[in-house]
């Protein structure tokens, strides 16, 4: 089994400047009230980046903006120099560049209830990869459902599947389109602990088979530490100019705190929870979440 971090480093060697996920002065809000930003960051490609923060910190907003689901936001988001954000912002295709392919896994699975598991995956492929022959798309859909352990259940409708199985379909769908950017919005938060661990393992395995840039939003500290090569910690609380000044003074560079998690990313999934590093990282993160803006010392 190829290690996550090793795969990441290998690809990092051939990385051109400006590749990967980048945010420049990104701000977003609802009804004129800002919820996130200004945010600036550069993430090397590929890699799994977990986004952690208290509720109201705008984690999901960042993800929805990157997925093209926010009609309007300030600043810019890009992947490998190609603009993100959908609609009129995604001028990529118009400028002769291919548009960024996004795989999106929402918390509620986002499956079309009137389509069977395999049809859900096929529909996604038909939209994202219209240029591919039908046979190739159908083969890819079947292969990914098989890979997430749903062989034999392809013809079931979402209501005939358990929550965990539905999320497997959603993961298969996201990977099947071979996305440049994978966005997961608290995908496992509605599932029980055992199912959740199975799916975390599945997600890591799928990512290793097909590495890309993955942003994984979660409110679960342990999940952030288990999955992320780097953890992006978003500050919560009210956004006043006072907050922002304090943010400038703190270690929250670019409006967020990036915590290196490479050491843990190299361990096999089974050994992570028992390692000292895991305990240390989760302790640090819990403290940072508790203290919010006051946190000044890097872990």
């Amino acid at each position, binding site marked *: 089994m190829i290690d996550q971090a090793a795969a990441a480093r290998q690809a990092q060697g051939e990385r051109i400047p400006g590749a990967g996920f980048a945010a420049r002065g990104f701000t977003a809000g609802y009804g004129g009230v800002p919820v996130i930003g200004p945010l600036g960051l550069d993430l090397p490609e590929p890699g799994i980046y977990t986004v952690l923060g208290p509720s109201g910190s705008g984690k999901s907003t960042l993800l*929805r903006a990157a*997925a*093209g*689901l926010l009609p309007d936001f300030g600043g810019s988001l890009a992947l490998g120099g190609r603009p993100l954000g*959908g609609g009129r912002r995604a001028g990529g295709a118009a400028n002769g560049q291919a*548009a960024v*392919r*996004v*795989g*999106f896994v*929402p918390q*509620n699975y*986002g499956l*079309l*209830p*009137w*389509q*069977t598991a395999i049809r859900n995956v096929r*529909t*996604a492929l038909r*939209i*994202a990869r219209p240029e591919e022959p039908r046979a190739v798309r159908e083969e890819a859909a079947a292969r990914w459902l098989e890979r997430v352990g749903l062989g034999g259940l392809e013809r079931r*409708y*979402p*209501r*005939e599947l358990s929550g965990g199985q539905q999320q497997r379909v*959603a993961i298969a*769908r996201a990977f099947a*389109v071979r996305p440049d950017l994978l*966005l997961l919005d608290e995908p496992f938060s509605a599932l029980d602990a055992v199912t959740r661990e199975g799916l975390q393992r599945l997600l890591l395995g799928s990512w290793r088979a097909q590495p890309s840039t993955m942003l994984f939003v979660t409110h679960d500290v342990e999940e952030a530490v288990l999955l992320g090569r780097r953890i992006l910690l978003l500050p919560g609380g009210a956004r006043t100019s006072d907050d922002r000044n304090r943010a400038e003074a703190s270690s929250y560079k670019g409006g967020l705190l990036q915590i290196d998690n490479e050491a843990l990313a190299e361990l096999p999934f089974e050994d992570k929870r028992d390692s000292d590093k895991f305990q240390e990282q989760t302790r640090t993160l819990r403290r940072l979440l508790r203290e919010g803006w006051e946190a000044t010392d890097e872990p």
Partner: protein
Amino acid sequence: MNPNSGRFVLRLLAVFAALHVLWALLSALLHRDMLPSPLAVYRALFVLDGAETLLHIGTSLGRVFAGIGLALILGLLPGLLMGRSPHWNRLLDPVVYLTYPVPKIALLPVAMLFLGLGEASKIVMIALILVFQIVISVRDGVKAIPAHTYDVLTSLGAGRMERFLHATLPGALSSLLSTLRISLGTAFSVLFFTEIYGTEHGMGYFIMDAWLRLDYADMYAGILLFSAVGFALFLLVDLIEHRFMKWRG
């Protein structure tokens, strides 16, 4: 309600038989020609001219389908617009709200005045009954589609047409079929009214004609046929629902 379940069919047959027993008893008790026995009616039914009966049934079905088609053409677009766009809903909602409670059958004389006694007034009446139900059910069906249903499609780069085909239309279809089932009964009743005038074909004409000729056995035979055709339409909606609504269970 699964049309394929054997037990359900058995129960239907039991009710069918019980109604006939009740009918036979009543007719024996009454002993008047205004209620012939089932036997007499079925005898009349089987000596009917096959080709002519088929023409009556075909004419009626043609009118019902034309009415449903017209109602769908007129009702789908406003329903979809109102479901998808708050702007259109604000604009059209008062129209629907104000006109919905008008008893459409009361507009029959108006339809006859404007469209004459021919096919047009018959088809328009049926469409008129159905169109408001269709607008409202399509609107509510589309509104009931959760916003997140569109999210994944949008993030994949789906255009308007793809979002409509994969999300809006199937969502609307589900509530459309439930409405069609209910309003089909109403449409059939209206069909009867419209076939009293200006036509020499159709189930309604057949029944009223037999009534005028005091041929009660024929009249009841017509009612039986009319009911059978209505039942067949009901089964058709069931089949369509079974085929397209499997996902709803």
